[in-house]
């Protein structure tokens, strides 16, 4: 079954509006969550990852908070920019230690228009 669920497939926003991409997960072990971003014709790359000490990771204006009570790691940004148009994947480290794979959601395609 799906370990990571991203509900939005396509998101279209006007520049300047807030961004929120949803991510929920199912995990038996203590979860590590990630957001990867893939711009057109580029490789996916890490955007940010969860911490174990309740810090809120931030990068390029994006932030996400791991909420274990609701099994969520939603990605947010206060003001969308044209350059934010890309594919965004939420990912979960499953299993324990380094013998575990990274499972990705189906992705959300964000398009920011002027």
């Amino acid at each position: 079954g799906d370990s990571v669920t991203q509900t939005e497939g396509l998101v279209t926003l006007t520049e300047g509006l807030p961004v929120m991409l949803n991510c929920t997960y199912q995990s038996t072990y203590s979860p590590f969550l990630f957001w990867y971003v893939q711009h057109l014709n580029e490789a996916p790359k890490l955007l940010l990852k969860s911490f174990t000490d309740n810090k809120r990771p931030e990068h390029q204006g994006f932030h996400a908070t791991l909420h274990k009570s609701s099994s969520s790691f939603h990605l947010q940004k206060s003001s969308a920019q044209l350059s934010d148009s890309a594919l965004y994947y939420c990912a979960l480290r499953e299993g324990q230690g380094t013998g575990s794979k990274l499972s990705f959601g189906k992705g959300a395609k964000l398009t920011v228009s002027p």
Partner: protein
Amino acid sequence: NAGVIQTPRHKVTGKGQEATLWCEPISGHSAVFWYRQTIVQGLEFLTYFRNQAPIDDSGMPKERFSAQMPNQSHSTLKIQSTQPQDSAVYLCASSLAPGGCAETLYFGSGTRLTVL
């Protein structure tokens, strides 16, 4: 640092032919992952090596797909008797391992496989 290198960038095969995809991980990285990317399914895990040993191949279609890592500098993904549904972008990623649960994956640009 050249990053993860995947060759070829594009491959077109006829139905029933074999396709071999190559990946060179970042030097010093000991974990290599293979993923398949499609619009419908997103990034699907295929298989994972650590220190050249296969760790998890739970995502590999067993009958026609195989992966190897003969040395620390390259891995191959082979698809026998390719079918149109195998058409996808195949992504290779590497990471430092053991790096803990928060280790970052570094992806290559992928090989776009088209099966006619």
